[in-house]
């Protein structure tokens, strides 16, 4: 298990006029070496959820277990005392006490996270990562992260070269200014900057936003290659074709809650998507045919050619 959310709630700006509850009782496990897509409407809690994985946000209550280290709302000892207090309280309900017991059990099994270690293990690529490039040369920019995490200059340069190689940027780019590269190249350099820190979990928040279909496909192929090399990928996206084509699992968020976790094919074959997600156009079309009474087995169909064959067969039997 790479990531485990246990009874996580999160409130922005608590006890202020801007207080806003964003996550409600999140219980979620993300497998090691999986490619998990997180989907849902704007405001459903996707970005809030992922920012808990490298402790950019701390839970208001509940815990997040990342690589066997625990992220708690306050320091772990204080949190344990708080949970013990809930368990002993006469004012709390049995349900609240049961939750506190299970969280206490979890907090006793694992040690607290170390911020620096966690941030090197969990890399986050935000939307438009190229806006974060700042160094004079591509190589300096990519080696900045490892240097900042205490690597020697030589080690950092080697890590940077390895990461650049992984994203398909060769040595002819090393001494060029990142600002003179094309949009797609800049984004690759920015991603290399994250990979150079050798994360074992890579979180991608809408990484293909603003790219044309060809660049977007190339970018997704790159992430799939990284996933195949053994890195756990967590992808926040609105593009259902990416979910269908690359993800092994999909988490559906709605109103700050995990609506379901399943596989993409199972999701798209069995959900019509009016409410939570926009289906890939082919699946939407097939569901609409099924609504008209067409006896299609949607989960057996992968593309338009399969659909044409299936319809021909159905009509042949009719």
């Amino acid at each position, binding site marked *: 298990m790479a990531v485990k959310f246990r009874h996580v709630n999160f409130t922005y700006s608590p006890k202020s006029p801007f207080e806003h509850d964003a996550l409600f009782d999140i219980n979620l496990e993300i497998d090691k070496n999986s490619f998990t897509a997180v989907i849902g*409407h704007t405001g459903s809690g996707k970005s809030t959820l992922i920012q808990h994985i490298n402790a950019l946000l701390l839970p208001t209550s509940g815990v997040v277990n990342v690589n066997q280290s625990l992220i708690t709302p306050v320091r772990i000892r204080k949190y344990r005392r708080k949970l013990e207090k809930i368990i002993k309280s006469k004012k709390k309900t049995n349900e609240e006490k049961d939750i506190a017991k299970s969280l206490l059990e979890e907090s006793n099994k694992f040690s607290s996270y170390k911020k620096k270690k966690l941030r090197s293990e969990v890399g986050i690529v935000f939307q438009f990562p190229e806006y974060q490039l700042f160094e004079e040369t591509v190589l300096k920019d990519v080696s900045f992260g490892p240097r900042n995490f205490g690597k020697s200059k030589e080690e950092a340069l080697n890590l940077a070269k390895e990461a650049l190689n992984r994203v398909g940027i060769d040595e002819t780019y090393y001494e060029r200014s990142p600002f003179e590269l094309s949009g797609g190249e800049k984004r690759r350099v920015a991603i290399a900057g994250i990979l150079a820190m050798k994360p074992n979990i890579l979180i991608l928040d809408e990484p293909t936003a603003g790219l044309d279909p060809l660049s977007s496909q190339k970018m997704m192929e790159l992430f799939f290659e990284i996933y195949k090399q053994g890195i756990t990928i967590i992808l926040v996206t609105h593009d259902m074709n990416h979910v269908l084509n690359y993800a092994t699992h999909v988490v559906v968020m709605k109103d700050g809650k995990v609506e379901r976790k399943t596989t993409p094919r199972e999701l798209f074959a069995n959900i019509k998507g009016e409410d939570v997600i926009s289906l890939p156009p082919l699946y939407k079309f097939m569901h609409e045919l099924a609504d008209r009474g067409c006896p299609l087995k949607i989960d057996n169909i992968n593309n338009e050619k399969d659909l044409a064959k299936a319809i021909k067969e159905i009509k042949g039997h009719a």
Partner: protein
Amino acid sequence: MKNIAISLNNVSYSYDKKNDVIKNVSLNIEKGKFISVIGHNGSGKSTFAKLIMGLLEPKEGEIKIFDLPLDGEHISQIRPYLGIVFQNPDNQFIGATVRDDIAFGLENQCYPQNEMDPLIEEYAARVGMSELLDKEPGNLSGGQKQRVAIAGVLAMHPKIIVFDEATAMLDPQGKEDINKLIKLMKKKNKELTLITITHNVEETQTSDDVIVFNEGEIYMKGKPEEVFLEAEKLRSIRLDSPLLYRIKEAFLLEGIKLKSKSIEDLKEEIWP
């Protein structure tokens, strides 16, 4: 040339004075047409948009807007005809509230305050933002911000509006909202010439014509059904057709010829 809104005659453009990103393009766009422009990054489509907006000047050739040459002499005469909605909704929100933002263009045209208020309300209503007139940008979704940008453009009474990847940064709901609004604008004002620059081929199907840019040249041009039925030609530059045409192509391989011109009709044709 009375019916021509935009004409390009052998237009070329280069950012670095060495490599042309628009190469000898000639084209006429009729008044009141809804045109979709597609192509990969670097194909020249956004440069094309900036050229017809007068934001860039051609290296060679001539551009005319309603038969007036788009040059230094005529630009101030032509500008009021043109409106553009950009990709990033955050970069084009100028006012502190929705009301202020829509007012910005009108203030620039020196409208008196008492005439501005009813106009602001009219244009906010047209884009479905009447309820949110006093909201700040931070309280709006990306789709809502784009709707405000469109209201601001409409308030200037342009005759041509260019949407330069205006839905690219929006979530699916925001995309749908803007596409519906574009269709509604077209329905309500048949004189308005609309040009959408987009990556999303599914958005192009209701347009009158589709222009495909590749390496600075017009690679294909025609009605959606003419362009998208040439799937192989599109695939050779790694572009795909909308779902309607992909399904028709797949059925043809199975020996079934489908005639539908819309997804709705296609459902009926496949399963009446």
